[in-house]
């Protein structure tokens, strides 16, 4: 199990070496990154097989848990570590083939993202989160156009502010409890964090990490960054990194802050995100920003799903998150060739029917049309929300339903526009998709279809993951052992 550290260490090592190595040996730079990602995915797969689904932990530096830093390896962490490697491999940016520094940034981001998925220490989470941020700044700024740089700068400023908030939150928690290990904090939370202070810390951390998770008030950077960054980077940020940030928030929520107020807060923030995101997406006039706003909306939906108390909420939230993890990157990859305003894309579907078909598939799943997985995720969410005897939850369900209507409208306004008989001169300029540009979307589409067919096993597995995630006892005993003397 200790080998899981490789998932963090290897890409980091690669990243450190790449800028040096790439100058001397050109092909190293090209292949090192993908090779390392393959290796890390293999490591995760092997370890996952060995674990047999039972959570375990490793102690970094060999120090016993409450003192040292631990990685916690439940299925959720492993699946996200794996997804990180695989998605990064699938969405390896074009620039990374040419520029070793971009490749290094990718590796840094992958390493930190895996670390975020695995880490069991509050401050360590923060460090990995910051690493992800800084690496994403670089990736986002990589096109180096004026707009990209300006968008990145705004992104940096808001991230920086988030950092301050999160750090303050961590400081509050540490001042109160004197420990940073999540398992230890879990033990102490009932007596120390179940109060205003705990909520304050949670709010601060939520706002801090929420910047990456595209939470409602702190997602202002999203549309401009996704519109200016390269589409694959946007795909990674929207698909993967945002989910990781959410997963971190949810871990903290489950372990440290099980107060109902925190859940209500998630619900309200999520609902606002859904509402504003989907409305703005409805108003968008170009593909990338439509996807960007849609992803804000979807993440709001994830948050709302997680706000359902108990295992049901975690299950629904994971389902929505995993679904979006597959769908949104695929859509962003489609935007590589189909970037820009709707008007310019009129009739593009006739030229690239496969791409249009994929778009429609993903759009259907996003809207939640049965039997695609998106439907089940949305259904679970709605059943969960409506299952609460609480008007706020019901209002939330109403907002989701309303937003879905907008979603259907704008997704299909675009989807049908692809088949508009556009004037030849305009659509002539639209690049035609080929196998290379469709590859990632095709693979993700296949995954989606497989999940559609295998919905029962997938659902059961996800329920198991949610069970593990919900089990605070399990976390504590796995990390700290049962009945051990603690400081």
């Amino acid at each position, binding site marked *: 199990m200790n080998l899981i550290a490789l998932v963090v260490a290897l890409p980091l090592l690669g990243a450190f070496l790449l800028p040096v190595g790439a100058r001397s040996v050109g092909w190293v730079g090209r292949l090192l990154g993908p090779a390392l990602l393959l290796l890390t995915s293999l490591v995760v797969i092997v370890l996952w097989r060995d674990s047999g689904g039972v959570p375990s932990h490793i102690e970094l530096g060999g120090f016993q848990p409450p003192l040292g830093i631990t990685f916690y390896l439940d299925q959720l962490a492993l699946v996200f570590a794996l997804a990180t490697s695989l998605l990064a491999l699938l969405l390896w940016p074009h620039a990374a083939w040419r520029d070793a520094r971009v490749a290094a940034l990718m590796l840094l981001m992958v390493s930190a993202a895996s670390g975020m998925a695995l880490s069991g220490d509050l401050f360590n989470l923060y460090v990995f989160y910051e690493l992800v941020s800084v690496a994403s700044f670089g990736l986002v700024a990589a096109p180096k156009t004026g707009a990209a740089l300006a968008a990145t700068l*705004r992104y940096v*400023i*808001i991230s920086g*502010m988030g950092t301050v*908030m999160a750090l303050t939150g961590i400081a509050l928690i540490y001042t109160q409890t004197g420990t940073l290990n999540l398992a230890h904090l879990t033990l102490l939370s009932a007596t120390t964090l179940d109060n*205003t202070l705990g*909520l*304050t810390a949670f*709010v*601060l951390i939520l*706002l801090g990490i929420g910047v990456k998770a595209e939470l409602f*008030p*702190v997602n*202002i*950077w*999203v549309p401009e960054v996704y519109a200016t960054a390269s589409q694959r980077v946007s795909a990674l940020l929207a698909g993967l990194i945002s989910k990781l940030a959410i997963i971190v928030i949810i871990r903290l929520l489950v372990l440290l802050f099980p107060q109902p*107020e925190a859940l209500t*807060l998630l619900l309200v923030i999520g609902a606002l995100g859904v*509402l*504003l*995101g989907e*409305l*703005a997406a*409805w*108003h*968008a006039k170009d593909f990338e920003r439509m996807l960007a*706003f849609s992803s804000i909306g979807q993440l709001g939906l994830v948050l709302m799903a997680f706000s359902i108390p108990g295992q049901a909420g975690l299950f629904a939230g994971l389902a929505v998150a995993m679904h979006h993890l597959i769908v949104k990157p695929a859509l962003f990859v489609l935007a590589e060739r189909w970037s820009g305003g709707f008007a310019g894309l009129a009739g593009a579907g006739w030229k690239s029917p496969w791409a249009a078909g994929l778009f429609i598939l993903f759009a*259907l799943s996003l*809207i939640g*049309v*049965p*039997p695609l997985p998106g*439907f*089940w995720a949305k*259904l679970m969410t*709605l*059943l969960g*929300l*409506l*299952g609460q005897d609480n008007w706020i939850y019901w209002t939330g*369900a*109403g907002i989701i*339903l*309303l937003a*879905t*209507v*907008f979603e*259907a*409208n704008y997704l*299909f*306004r675009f989807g*049908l*526009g692809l*088949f*508009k*008989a556009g004037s030849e001169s305009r659509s002539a300029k639209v690049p035609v998709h080929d196998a290379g540009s469709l590859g990632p979307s095709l693979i993700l589409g296949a995954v989606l279809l497989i999940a559609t067919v295998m*919905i*029962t096993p997938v*659902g059961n597995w996800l*329920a198991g993951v949610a069970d593990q995630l919900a089990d605070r006892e399990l976390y504590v005993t796995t990390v700290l052992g049962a009945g051990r003397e603690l400081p």
Partner: protein
Amino acid sequence: MSLLDALLLTALGTLIATLATVRTRWVGYVASLGLGLQLLVLFLLAPLGYGAPAVTSGLAWDLFGQPLVLRYDAMSWYFALITLGAGLVSSVYATGAWSDHYRAAGRSPGWLQFALALNVFTMLLLLASGDFLSLFIAWELVSWASFLLMALAAGPALKWSLRYITYATAGAMSMLAALGIVFHLTGSLNYADFMAAVDQWSVGLITLLTVLFGAGFAVKMGILPFHLWQAGAYAETPGPGMAFLGAISSRMGLYGMMLVWVQLIGLIRLIEVHIPLTFLSLRDVLMWIAAFTIILPTYTALKQNDARRLLAWHGIGQGGYMLMGILSASALGSAGGILHIFNYATNQAVLLLAVFAVVYRTGTADLNKLGGLFTRMPLTFVAMLVGIIGLAGIPPMNGFVSKWMVYRSLLSEGMPLLFVASVIGTLGTILSVYKLIHNTFLGQLRLEHEPVQEAPWSMVIPMMVLALIIFLTGFMPGIVLDWVAAVQAAVGLPVLPHTLGGVADAHGGLDMIMLVLVLFAGFGVSALLFYATGRSEPVHQLDNYAGGHFLSADVRYHYSDHFYAGLMHRIGHWYRGSFLWFESVVASLASFLAQWSATFYRLMQPALPMLAMAVIVLWMVS
């Protein structure tokens, strides 16, 4: 494996076979054959239609602890019969000459056939749904399948299908909300648990569920105020597709209403719900909605100049009769409503097929560009004549029987205003269908239509078959009433005692066999009188009294535009487009909010909302 499995698997097989041959020339034959096979299997299931106990499929499975049940009862069978009939007729119609024409226009008949097969399959699935979850899943499938059919034509169809899918999604979401509430209340999505629990629910809850479910179904039905999408979306669908959609697709909404309102909730509960501050019950309100659905779309149809659109608007209006009949809750009225589904499907199908035969020959459905085609396409004319008589509800066609039953029940239930409203609708129907047949087949034949010939046999035969069915079921409505009675029994409505000729009632029944015989005897006597008194001399159409002028063929004197000028002088200013206005208000409001959200993301200083949020939330929690 039950026969139901066989039916569904045949449908699925048809779908796959159609997809496999979608680019070939024989796709139409494959699809027609498949639909024929399905119809055959359905006939094997015929005992259902006469009240045999429900058949459950062996294909049930569990999803997340929710058993998905597929089963057919009398109601499913009845709807499936109409679905398959309409599907088969449309498919055959789309197969021969029509498909060559369609292909020559650069379109793919294969995809049309596929979309038809998909619609049929999803609808059969919907009819089989045995719990709320499978109901919703199949419902969504049906919605998106018909979306495919509507969007196939591209061009203006894209915009209309977008409007459709927006409405449909809204409706589906409303159903989903209802589903969630049901799950919350009963802890399951079974019909049985629902029916067991419904007794304990408060009036408000029943109202809420009725409205939420109903809104979903009403969108599909095109019940006011959710009707704006329907006419345009249907009218832009390729010919046979429109015939199919117009005949049965929107009736799936009625299936849902019968299932949820009648079978599960029970009309008696709707009658018990009193709307505060009025003397109306919830059922009355719904009936009034049905009444407005009859009147307003029918009179909108009156204004249409496109034959497809005219018929499509009628489709919306006729839905109101069915709903009104069913909601009347009496044996007679509900039987009329249910019977009207069948009758209207046949009428609408034959009318649309006739219209598209005309379109096939002349290239237009614009009522101002046609005329005088009776001499060129007599069989198509007969088909349309039968259709309009049926649609207008005039004896001896089947449409009369079902409408008569609805009127009669409104009469005996003592609902004068609704009665008058439905008659007003019928009068409007008569006016507009006359306009349809007059502008198409009567009057002056245009010069460019001189060489037009009768439609090809592959198109005429389906029309003739339908016309025959319309007449036969008007002559002997008892054939269909047997099935209707079984449906009534299945959904818990009082069962109508009926005879082969109609309804026996001590205070005014109906016996179509006698009436039709007398009517034809009258025609016979009249014809005898007419033809016995010497031969008449046929003259050219232009040999006409025209105030001293000689008419020539190149001058257009067919009275078609602004056909009911006098009427429009009176009621023209009543067309306010209020629903359209309301829709645009909603859309504008949403658009304003959307603009506001976009502005928020554009203009907001990034850090301010974060800080504001932090403070507000902290203020809340502390």
